[in-house]
């Protein structure tokens, strides 16, 4: 017996169950006579019960020879088993697991070892009930618990003669009621009919003395099944008249805790959980939801039809709900089902898209991080200061988060000098990225080789032009020497820098050098500005001054005004913010780089202009304009240009330097001073000359 108990499937074997089982063992030992008679009538057991109860767990049947026990003992057992059942019902995770148990000691469902036809029929019938339930619920059952509970109870029951008489009467009543219900439901299967006949036959005789009940399980989660209502019926009976076998033969109860039973039955119907340790011994758990499909809902409790009816009447809620559900037409059910399916589909879709959105968001963050890293490689983090100079830079792409065609760099050179590179490659966005890196690092290298900005441009441009592949780039290179307080810059197709304290149109724009990649020599101009006092040098890309405000260009004038308006310590970011606020359309990338030079109140002034002239340039009108703008007297222009042409004829180009100051500029004409970079060419020329 203990072995069998171990074989039972109990998901979470409760301690109470073990106790009940041990008690059963003891009882079995105390009831030898009954057991013997039972065994002699039918030695084979268990397997048949399993065969008869399709939905049940395999060796569901347990046979315990039982004999009458005294009332008190039975009551104790009942309570104990009930606790066990309640515990397993609620703790075993089986929703609405049902356990049915006999009170009267007569074996009913599933107990087959008695071997008599009546009993088999009875068990078969209960098996049917279980089958209904199991079939609808996919066979999920809570059999182990209910069986154990039932078993322990059954053993304790003794049937008194008086009880038999009463039971017979009540059985008849229940039968009639079941008949009525069957007629109502229009459904009666053959097995049930057979079972009923067998039952009637049995009722005619004196019932067998003591049999052990093996309760078939009624499936868990029988919310919407006929089994649910069947069990509910059983519950009603139980509550009213005492213990009942699961939808089967009622037995005389030796226990009456009716009030508690009623409460529990009611609670069960309305979905409440069964309180542990409640007084009702035999628990038939059924989810309270009355089933609309309770077609075959035989009344299983045989006792107390009146009570049963009374019980139903006393639950108007259930009755009402059942009625309402009963009148819902099939088409409406179909509609409800379709809506439910749609809801499930929508929920699934929604969940999937939420997940996808989360994934995309994560990928986007990752990408932005990558872009940020790449952008940091292109647009370096500047130190807040380089020596005595505050440095800030800012970059605003025209579209998207990534860097585009603008680039900048600020770095320290030897002897405390500071170098600045700001440039713009034609086109923007990612297509321009390879070119911006190429330009920035190449130009930086030339500047770090201690070339002046113009020399760096002059030397780097031919190499860069070959690699730009048709693109062109504008760039401004600058160095600042804090000791001399001289800012030297050279532009290649790029706007001149602004200096606070100096008019924005002071720089001579005639004869500006062309961009890198335009097919013409560049690095032909250089300007030196002395910065005696405090000033801010602003390097920027043309996207800043080509921003639009009301259809007009933002322009250098407005930019200079914005720079002045930012106070003593402006930052590039605040300057670009100001530009953004002052414009309505910014079609190009914007970059700005500021050098904050501290000092007194003296204003900056241009001290030197350089221009490199070849023979053709020396003869052009724009060169004349340049000389005039620089303050060269008209009468000396022809003389200067003639000398330049002569030098260019010998050396390819002439470098004209104008020292600006009070009065006419002092002019110096030399030949190309980047000769060291063309040493090989010059040597070859000399060889030819020799």
């Amino acid at each position, binding site marked *: 017996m203990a072995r069998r108990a171990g074989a039972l499937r109990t998901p979470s074997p409760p301690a109470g169950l073990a106790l009940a089982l041990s008690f059963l063992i003891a009882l079995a030992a105390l009831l030898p006579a009954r057991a013997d008679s039972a065994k002699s009538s039918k030695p084979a057991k268990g397997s048949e019960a399993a065969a008869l109860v399709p939905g049940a767990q395999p060796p569901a049947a347990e046979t315990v020879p039982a004999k009458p026990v005294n009332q008190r003992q039975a009551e104790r057992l009942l309570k104990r088993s009930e606790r066990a059942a309640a515990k397993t019902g609620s703790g075993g995770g089986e929703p609405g697991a049902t356990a049915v148990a006999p009170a009267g000691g007569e074996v009913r469902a599933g107990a087959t070892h008695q071997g008599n036809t009546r009993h088999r029929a009875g068990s078969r019938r209960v098996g049917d009930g279980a089958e209904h339930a199991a079939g609808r619920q996919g066979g999920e059952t809570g059999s182990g618990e209910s069986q154990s509970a039932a078993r322990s109870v059954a053993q304790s029951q003794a049937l008194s003669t008086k009880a038999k008489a009463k039971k017979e009467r009540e059985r008849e009543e229940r039968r009639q009621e079941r008949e009525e219900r069957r007629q109502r439901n229009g459904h009666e299967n053959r097995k049930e009919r057979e079972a009923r006949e067998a039952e009637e036959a049995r009722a005619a005789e004196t019932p067998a003395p003591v049999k052990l009940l093996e309760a078939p399980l009624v499936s868990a989660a029988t919310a919407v099944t006929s089994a649910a209502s069947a069990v509910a019926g059983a519950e009603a009976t139980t509550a009213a008249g005492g213990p009942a076998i699961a939808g089967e033969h009622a037995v005389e109860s030796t226990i009456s805790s009716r009030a508690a039973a009623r409460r529990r039955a009611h609670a069960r119907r309305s979905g409440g959980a069964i309180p542990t340790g409640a007084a009702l011994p035999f628990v038939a758990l059924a989810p309270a939801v009355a089933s609309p499909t309770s077609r075959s809902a035989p009344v299983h409790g045989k006792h107390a039809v009146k009570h049963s009816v009374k019980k139903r009447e006393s639950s108007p809620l259930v009755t009402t709900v059942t009625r309402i559900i009963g009148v819902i037409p099939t088409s409406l059910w179909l509609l409800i089902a379709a809506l439910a399916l749609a809801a499930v589909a929508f929920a699934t879709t929604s969940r999937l898209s939420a997940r996808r959105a989360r994934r995309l968001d994560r990928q986007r963050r990752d990408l932005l991080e990558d872009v940020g890293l790449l952008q940091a490689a292109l647009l370096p983090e500047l130190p807040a200061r380089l020596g005595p100079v505050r440095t800030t830079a800012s970059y605003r792409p025209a579209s998207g988060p990534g860097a585009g065609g603008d680039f900048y760099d600020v770095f320290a050179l030897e002897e405390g000098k500071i170098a600045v590179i700001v440039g*713009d490659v*034609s*086109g923007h966005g990612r297509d321009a990225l390879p070119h911006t890196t190429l330009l920035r690092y190449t130009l930086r290298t030339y500047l770090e080789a201690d070339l002046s900005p113009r020399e760096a441009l002059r030397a780097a441009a031919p190499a860069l032009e070959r690699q730009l592949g*048709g*693109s*062109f780039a*504008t760039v401004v290179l600058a160095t600042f020497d804090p000791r001399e307080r001289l800012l030297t810059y050279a*532009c*290649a*197709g*790029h*706007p*001149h820098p602004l200096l606070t304290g100096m008019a924005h149109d002071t720089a001579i*724009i*005639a*004869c*500006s*050098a*062309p*961009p890198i990649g*335009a*097919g*013409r020599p*560049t690095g*032909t*101009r250089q300007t030196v500005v002395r910065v005696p006092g405090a000033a801010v040098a602003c390097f920027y890309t*043309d996207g800043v001054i*080509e921003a*639009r*405000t*009301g*259809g007009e*260009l933002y322009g250098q004038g407005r930019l200079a005004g914005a720079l002045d308006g930012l106070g003593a310590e402006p930052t590039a970011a605040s300057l670009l913010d100001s530009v953004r606020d002052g414009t*309505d*359309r910014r*079609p*190009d990338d914007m970059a700005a780089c500021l050098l904050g030079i501290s000092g007194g109140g003296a204003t900056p002034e241009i001290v030197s202009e350089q221009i490199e002239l070849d023979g053709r*340039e020396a003869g*052009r*009108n*724009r060169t004349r304009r340049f000389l005039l703008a620089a303050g060269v007297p008209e009468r000396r222009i022809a003389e200067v240009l003639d000398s330049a042409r002569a030098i260019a004829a010998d050396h390819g180009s002439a470098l004209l330097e104008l020292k600006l100051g009070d009065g006419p500029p002092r002019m110096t004409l030399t030949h190309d001073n980047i000769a060291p970079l063309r040493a090989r060419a010059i040597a070859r020329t000399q060889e030819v000359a020799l």
Partner: protein
Amino acid sequence: MQAVGVNASETNSGAVSFLISRRELAHDTSLLSVEGDLDLASAPSLKWALEDLQAAESRNVIVDLARVGFIDSTALGVLVGAQRSLGSGVRLAIVCEEENVLRIFELTGLDGMFEIVPTLQYALSYIQGSNTAAG
């Protein structure tokens, strides 16, 4: 006159129409007349028009920017590209009197790269071999 490209560049003050028209002149010369602002939005139209001329193997090209109020770096890049892709015997002249545009050419150092003349007559003279209008 045949319109070869129409574009609209929007500003806050309203839509400013942009138009490029093409005319065949004597001496195997094509004239592209541009009207409106040459910026990021309209530069591609100019580029396509110039590419059409190259495909048509025009010997000389005059780009008339007399009615252009602004030219940005993108459009300048288009002109630079056209100048560089022209063959050795082909001449490109730009007609422009607008100060803003001339200043942009000057600022970017591209005024030395193109033959920029004030009127169409100067352009024709340059095309025909006269170099008197050289800037």
